[in-house]
């Protein structure tokens, strides 16, 4: 079985995520971009599991874990975004410079 096409899709998806992460100013969009990157990794895991025919189904188990962690991460992330928005009346990531020197 060929894995290249899957890897290509995943790389594309990851690059889109990186791009979104770096250029989007809306913090919700940034979080969505992070999700894209995570899912690109999931595609890779599943593709390699299928290609290598592992009897343990490690890739699938791992991707399930990633999905769980991503869900938790989004939960926390959205909660933080919500609180910052309440304080600053803004969802623009450029306004979030509390950790400046």
């Amino acid at each position, binding site marked *: 079985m060929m894995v290249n096409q899957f890897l290509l899709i995943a790389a594309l998806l990851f690059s889109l995520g990186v791009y979104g992460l*770096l250029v989007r100013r809306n913090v919700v969009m*940034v979080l969505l971009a992070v999700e894209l990157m995570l899912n690109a990794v999931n595609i890779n895991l599943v593709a390699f599991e299928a290609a290598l025919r592992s009897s343990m189904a490690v890739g699938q188990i791992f991707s399930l874990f990633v999905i769980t962690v991503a869900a938790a991460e989004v939960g926390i992330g959205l909660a933080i975004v919500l609180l910052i928005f309440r304080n600053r009346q803004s969802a623009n*990531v*450029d306004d*979030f*410079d509390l*950790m*400046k*020197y």
Partner: protein
Amino acid sequence: MKSVFVLAAEEAPHGAVELASGGVLAQWAGLMLVLPFAAFLLIIWRGKHMKYKGAEFAIGAMAVNLVMATALFISNMVEGIFHEEHFEIAKIGLWEGKNLIFELGWVVDGLSIMMYFVVSFVGLLVFLYAVGYMHGDVRVTWFFASLCLFAGSMLVLVGSANLVQLIIGWEGVGVASYLLIGHYWEQKENSSAAIKAFLVNKVADVGLVLGAIYVGLSLGDFRFSTLERAAVEGDAVLAGVAAAAGLLLFFGAMGKSAQFPLHIWLPDAMAGPTPVSALMHAATMVTAGIYLMARTFPLYQNLAGDIEILGSLDVRGLMVIVGAITLFGMGLLALVADDIKKVLAYSTVSQLGYMMTAVAAGGYTAGLFHLFTHAFFKALLFLGAGSVIHAVHSNNMSDMGGLRKDMPTTFWTFSIGSLALAGIIPLAGFWSKDEILATLDYEGYQAVMWIAVAGAFVTAFYMTRAVALTFFGTYKGHGQPHESPSIMTTPLIALAVPSVIVGFFNVPGVKLGGLGNFTEWVGARSVPMGDHHAEAIDWRLAAFGLAAGLGGIIVGWLIFGRDAETQAARDKVEVPVLYPLLRQKYYMDHAALGVTGFIKGPTARAVNWINTYVIDGVVNGVGAVVKALGGLVYNGLDQRGVDGIFNGIAAGSDSAGRALSRLQTGRVQNYATGFVVGALVLVLIVVVAA
């Protein structure tokens, strides 16, 4: 109680009865030394709240002391006493294998008993007198406290069984003297007099301290009993140091006992209240020097004709000459003083000269007997003078006159004192002065004896002058003088009695029944004193002394008595050269000021110049070099080198931190960019490496 040492002398002196231990009385004699100090503390503590401002404590302590001293005095009459107690306080150190020990204690023998009695007797009467005299005065409580301090120190001095304790008492009376002379310190001249007394005594004290150290180190022991025994046994070590140590101790005695030329403090000490003058500067404190000579008498006995200095003059000859100058030259000064207390002060100096001459010539008993009689009649004279001063509010005889009708008790007692001092038979002064003349005659100091006879003439002369100017003629002062209250006249009468009778204590060859005589009483020492005693009175010498005394009175009366009312009476006898010389006190004060002035003036300036330009120059030069070197090290090495390194590191860290902190934008996406770039670089490295 450590090292209690009791000694009964094996050989009784002068064939007297063997010395007794003195029993419980002697064992508790130390109480007399302590009681005045207890009274001092009580006065300080409670005195201000008492009716008589603390005098009660002083008088109480003195009364107890007098009872003990009298009991001892009588016991000593019956049977000679010798008893010592030593309490080891500290080990001072080792000297040539001998342990030097600092001890306190007391000695009870004929000499100290006599002094206990004199100090307590005169002390008690003066304390009583002072209650009246100082009534309503400033700082009465402190006055009595100081008097107690004095009495205690004096008893510590005379009761001491060793030289170290003697010095403690000696300095104690010096301090008390300083405090009491300067009692009215608001006036500058009074505090100056106090300082003068203290400083002159300090000069002499150097001699005492050095002498004591010299004797103590030579014998390995500071006890008098050791010194006495060594002297009597002819100890070679002691004989070697005796001349020098004797001179040093004599120098100490010269200060306290106001011997020429260290007498200059005593007339000025009259700035103190009159009771102080009576007790300290007439009866007791100034006799401390004579006491020291008597206490160390065996040391001087050994010196007789042994060691010669200044050609044919030996140490004792020198001492006799100092005493002779003092007794005659200072007596003359009393002739011109207007201040009645100064008259008595110079008289005291002169009489101390008699005592010193006698003791130095070898008349242990003669000197002490004069000390004993003099204490009574001179205290009497001072208290009488105080009574007059109290009445007329002036010290000057030019403000007095005609007081015999207004103050009969003072007049009669003062006259008795004057006659006793002038040496008129049968009063006390006649017998003691006669004994001194006899001693000088026997010991071969004929020339000095004639000076002493001349001194007796002068004594009678100035006392007649004082009596005439004070009690005869017309009153020249202000207000109406009255007789003093009975608390002041009673001590006068109480002192007049011994001034009359104590002379009979030592009529040559006569003993008072089973009680012996003064010679035996003060002869009760651990060793025999070995001085000469005449078997019978030498009427030839007595006649000289008596004639001198009567002559002085007659001449004095002829000059001052007949027209004592006029000031001119005194000027009439002004001898051209002598009078100004005497008025200026032989320029002794000028000489002393010259010496101190030379020290203060040219010497001090020279020293100052050397100090400023030589010593300071060297010191400043060294300082400047060190400072320059320091500057070099500081600026070059420390500031630029060491500090530069650390400052550079700090500055570098600081600027680096400031620059790098720019990276901390706080923006998440900047960090993410860096993260991605970093990851890409890693990927690139992996790809290239592969």
